[in-house]
C-alpha cells in the first residue's frame, strides 16, 4: 500500500479489513488483503479492470461474502443488514437504486428525512444545486439521463449523515466540472472527520483526495 499523507494517524481505525480472500472458481481476486481506514482519511482502490476493486468494495459493503478474512467497523464485525452499520455507511456503486415514482428531490428528501437530517428541504435544495440537478428536481429517476442519474446517486450518498463513504468509480459519467465538485466534496468529507474508501481510474481525483492507495490485484497488497 502506498501512502502520501497521514490525516487520521492518531485516530482509532474506523474500518479494518484483515486477510481478505475472495475466489471465483479457480481465479483468486483478493489475495489476503489487509488495510485500515481511519476517520478523516481517504483510501483509493486502484488497478486495472478485473483487478478486484469492485469485489473489495462489495465485500466491505456486505454485498459479497469473502471466502476468508474479516471486515470490522469500530472493531465489530460488519453486518450489512445491521441498522447501526447502515446508519454509518453511505455507499454509491452501480447497484444504487431509486423509488421509480418519487422525483429526484423527493428521493433525496426521503433519505434526509429517514436519517433525521435537520432542515432537510434546504439541504436537498443545496445538494441538487451542487450536482446540477435543480432543473430536474421534479423529474422521475427513469426520465433522467445516465449522467444525471449518476449525479443523483452521488447526491444520495451525500444527503445523509455517515462516517464512512464507499464509492465505486464515482467519476463515471461526470464532466470536468463534476470531477472538480467531487474532489471538493471528498476533501470536505475528510476535513469533517469522515472516512472515504473509493475505487477509481481517475488520476486527478486520486492524487487530490487519496491519503493511501491500495491495489487489490497486487501480490503484496
Amino acid at each position, binding site marked *: 500500500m502506498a501512502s502520501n499523507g497521514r490525516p487520521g494517524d492518531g485516530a482509532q481505525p474506523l474500518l479494518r479489513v484483515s486477510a481478505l480472500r475472495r475466489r471465483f472458481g479457480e481465479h483468486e481476486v483478493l489475495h489476503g488483503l489487509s488495510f485500515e481506514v481511519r476517520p478523516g482519511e481517504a483510501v483509493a482502490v486502484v488497478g486495472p479492470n478485473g483487478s478486484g476493486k469492485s469485489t473489495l468494495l462489495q465485500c466491505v459493503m456486505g454485498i459479497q461474502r469473502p471466502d476468508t478474512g474479516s471486515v470490522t467497523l469500530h472493531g465489530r464485525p460488519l453486518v450489512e443488514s445491521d441498522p447501526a452499520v447502515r446508519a454509518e455507511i453511505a455507499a454509491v456503486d452501480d447497484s444504487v437504486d431509486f423509488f421509480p415514482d*418519487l422525483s429526484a428531490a423527493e428521493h433525496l428528501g426521503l433519505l434526509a*428525512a429517514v436519517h433525521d437530517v435537520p432542515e432537510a428541504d434546504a439541504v436537498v435544495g443545496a445538494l441538487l444545486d451542487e450536482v446540477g440537478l435543480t432543473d430536474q428536481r421534479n423529474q422521475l429517476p427513469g426520465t433522467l439521463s445516465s449522467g444525471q442519474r449518476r449525479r443523483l446517486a452521488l447526491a444520495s450518498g451525500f444527503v445523509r449523515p455517515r462516517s464512512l463513504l464507499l464509492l465505486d468509480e464515482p467519476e463515471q459519467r461526470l464532466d470536468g466540472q463534476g470531477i472538480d465538485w467531487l474532489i471538493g466534496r471528498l476533501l470536505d468529507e475528510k476535513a469533517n472527520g469522515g472516512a472515504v474508501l473509493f475505487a477509481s481510474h481517475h488520476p486527478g481525483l486520486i492524487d487530490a483526495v487519496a491519503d493511501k492507495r491500495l491495489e487489490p490485484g497486487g501480490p503484496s497488497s
Partner: protein
Amino acid sequence: MRLLTQVRRVGRGRREPTDWWTLLLAVLVLAGFPVQVIIGLSAGRASGVTAAVPAALTVGVAVLLGALLLAVAVALGPVRGSPAEYTWVLGGPVDRRSELTPRWVRTLAGTGVLGAALAAVAGAVGGADRAQLGLTVVIGVGLGVALAAGATGLQGGTAGVRRAVQGGTTAAGVVLVGLAVLLIRLGSTPAIPGWVAPVGAPLAVLLAVSTVVWAWRRIPALDRLALTAGNALFTAGGAAVLFMDPALLGDVLAQRRFSQLRIQRSRSFPTGRRRALLAAEWVRAIRNRRAAGIFVGALLVPYVAATVAPARWLPVVALLSAVPAVSPFGTGLRKVCQSAALRRMLGGTDSALKTLHLAAPAVAAVLFTLAAAPAMPADRWIALAFTPIGVLINLWLRATAKPMEFDGLVADLGFGPAPVQLSWFLIRGLAPLALVLSLQLAI
C-alpha cells in the same frame, strides 16, 4: 410488388409447418374452462334473478370489456412486426400498406373470433335461443373487428387522443356497470328486449366495415414510432408467458406508466423514519391514478356477481377481485423487497422497512373489504373478513419472492420430474389465496 411477392413466396417455403390441430385443441381446452365455470355459476343464480341477463348490466360489462381490450390493443400496436420488418417497411422501396396488411388482417380475424366467443358465452348464459345466439355472435364479431380496427386508427393518433379515448371508454364502462348494479338492486331490471339482436347485428357489421375502412386509410401514415411503440410490451408479455414470470411484464408496464407521469411540485417529507416512509407511501398512492381506477373497477365485480352468483361465492369473488385492486398499492413494498441497495440507503432493519411498506396495501385491502360488504348478505361477512388476510399474504409472498430459478432442485414425484423451486415460485402467491378461498367457502 413483384419483388415483394417473391420474397413472401420464399419466406413461406422456409416456414416451419404449424400444427393447427394441436393449437385448436389447446384453444378449445383453455376456452372451455371459463365457459364451464360461467355455466356452473349461472346454474345457481341468486333468488329473484331471472335467466335473462339484465340489459343494463350487459351493456355496462360489454363497454368495460371493450375499453379494456381497446387499451390492450392500443398498447400493443395493434399493427406491429419484428425490427427487421420495420426496417424493410420504413426503409425499403415497398408499399407500406401491402406489407403490413396480412398481419393486420390476422389481428382483425383474431379479435373477431374473440368477440364471437365472448358473445356466444353471453348469449348462452342469457338463455338466448338458436336464432338469437347466431345474431349475438354476429354482433360479437362486428364489435371485435371494429375494436381492433378502431385501435389501428388510433395508433397513428397522438398520445393525448389515445389516452382520452381509453380513459373515456373505461370511465363510461365503469359508470354503466355501476348504474346497472344500482338498477338491479333497486329491482328495476328489464331484460334485453327481443329486437336488440336483429337490429344490433347489422349495426355491428356496419360499424365494423366503417372502422376497417377508416383504419385501412390510416395504415400508410403509420410511422416508425407508431409501429414500434408496442414492441417492448409485446416482447415482455411473451417473455412473461414463456418464463411464467409476471414480473417481466410488470417492469415494462411500470416503465410505461412512469414515463407518462408528470410531477408539478416535489413533496417534502416529515422528519423521522416511520413518518417519512409512510408519507412517501401516501404520495405514491395518490400519484398512481390508475390504482384508483382499478380499485373502483374491481370493487364493482362483487356487486355484479351478486346479481348472477349464489351468495356463498360472493366472499370468494371479493377476495379474487381484491388482489388486482390492492396490488397497485404495493409498488413501494415490491421495490423495497427487490432492492437491497435501497434498503441500505434507507437504513433500519429489513423487516421494519418491509412492514412499513405494507401499510398502504393494508389500508387499501381493508377499505376494499368494507366497501364490498354491502354486496352480500350479512351472514357472509365473517367469510368476507378473511379477504385482507388473503390479499396481504399473497402480496407479501409475491413481493418477497427471490428471482425465479430454472436450474434448481428436481424431484421425481412419481409422475415425472418436477422442478421444486420453480413450482414453489409459481404457487407461493396462489397457495395462501387458495387456502383462504377454501376457508371462505367452508364458513
